[in-house]
């Protein structure tokens, strides 16, 4: 039984971000697995709206008490919206990683990049392997 909540309807990266495509935009966040590994999140550094992000490159910073993780962009694009709620309540990433805990929204440069990301079954398999290491 998978102990992490891995949901349908979003795509996953190998660095444990999720992205939900909405037309030519994508909402991006941290997977349940990633938030669990980080532990209690205490601070989030958001990109400015308008920032150009590049697939696989750091685009936001998520901090727990004793760890810092980059949130890598799942695809190329420019940031159109950020979740400012996280500045006051970063812990919603822990409690609701796929909902209230979203981090930012980008306008996709190349929608086909989304096809390269993992779907739920592929990501489940990936997480099991990661966890065994």
């Amino acid at each position: 039984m998978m102990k992490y909540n891995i949901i349908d309807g979003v795509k996953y990266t190998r660095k444990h971000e999720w992205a939900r495509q909405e037309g030519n935009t994508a909402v991006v966040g941290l997977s349940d697995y990633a938030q669990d590994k980080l532990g209690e999140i205490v601070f989030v550094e958001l990109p400015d709206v308008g920032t150009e992000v590049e697939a696989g490159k750091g685009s936001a910073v998520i901090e727990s008490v004793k760890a810092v993780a980059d949130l890598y962009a799942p695809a190329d694009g420019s940031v159109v919206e950020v979740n400012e709620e996280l500045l006051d309540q970063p812990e919603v990433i822990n409690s609701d990683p796929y909902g209230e805990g979203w981090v930012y929204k980008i306008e996709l440069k190349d929608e086909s990049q989304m096809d390269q990301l993992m779907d739920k079954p592929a990501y489940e398999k990936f997480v099991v392997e990661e966890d065994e290491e």
Partner: protein
Amino acid sequence: MGGKHYLPLTDQDRNEMLAAIGVKSVEDLFSDIPKEVRLQRELELPPALAESEAIKHLSSLASKNKHFHNCVSFMGAGVYDHFIPSVIKHITGRSEFYTCYTPYQPEISQGVLQAIFEYQTMICQLTGMDVANASMYDGGTAVAEGAVMGCGATRRSKALVSRSVSPFYRAVLKNYFHSRGLELEEIPLRDGCTDTGELEKMLGDDVASVILQQPNFFGLVEEIGGVADMVHNHKAVLVISADPLSLPLLQPPAEYGADIVVGEGQGLGVPASFGGPLLGIMASRSKFVRQLPGRIAGETVDSEGNRGYVLTLQTREQHIRREKAASNICSNEALVALGAAVYMAAMGPQGMREVAEQCLQKAAYTRESITALKGFENAFPGPAFKEFAVTVPGDPAELNRKLLEKDILGGVDLAPFYPELNNVMLFAVTEKRTREEIDTLVRELEGWK
């Protein structure tokens, strides 16, 4: 062999332990060091000294030095002969404090953590800033890190530093900037103070930090009321290097718009120690806290709701953020900061005010007396706090040699730092100086040349 009293293992212990490890000899434990790098001889060091011999040797070295206890000092330039209450060494000498490491295990480090929290609060009270760290190495490194912090906060890479900032601090700053590839320009002087007209011209939207010192290196209290607006109009950060002992009397930097306050805390009950250990002060507005380098103690509660203290916001620091850390600082001057907290508690608001006022009065009296002498002139006009620059009729080194004959440590010669200031000396007068000592100095100067 020396140091046996520090090494508890006996030969019998060693043999039993080697057997338990499962090796035949000590040599087996060092067999992983390749032959070609093994030292094939014993170290050549002077023979070991017993405790009494060591004390004799060190005392003999110490006796070759002049110091504040056998001389009357008028030296300043960042390090001063201020009064040090006896309580300080009795607290910093408690070995639960001085033999512990950084409080990474808060439950058994509440003493250091709470003392640092109290120190941080007092630094905030003095400077008017929102948050202070647990210390930097000294005033120079605090200035450098403050300027770098401005670069981080603004994502720009250029700083402007006034020539009235201590040349010692500027030397460190220059080095920190040069190695990082950051740009540094010096704001010229006008009457010994920052030329704010020039500063206005130099300011642009590429400037991250502007660094001024108050009172400045020449002891002058600069008129920098309007500077903050100028700096903030360009979205740059104002870094003020302040003497904490001046702050009971002077306007706190927060009030005239400083974003970051740094400084040398040696005056807060810290022995001069030939220039170290000193105490780097660093404080800022809360919006810059994530760029603040070094350790910070924070308040929290334990599992039962009791108030307690921990190191907080550690993700800024090197042991977590590694190459992306705000700074590489790890060891700081925690014990010195603790001593400074004891100092501020002992002096209290009244004592610190008295110290500052006595510095002001005694420096003014000395300045007036010296500049009344023929050939001695004020190098700069303007109000001074506890030191002042004087043009003297001859070679400062020669004058200092003469003063030394009377067991007086004279002023600091400024020519090595400001080539244009020939025969100019910086005299400091702290609350410890008496009228008699000052009058003796003046008499000696009078008889010179």
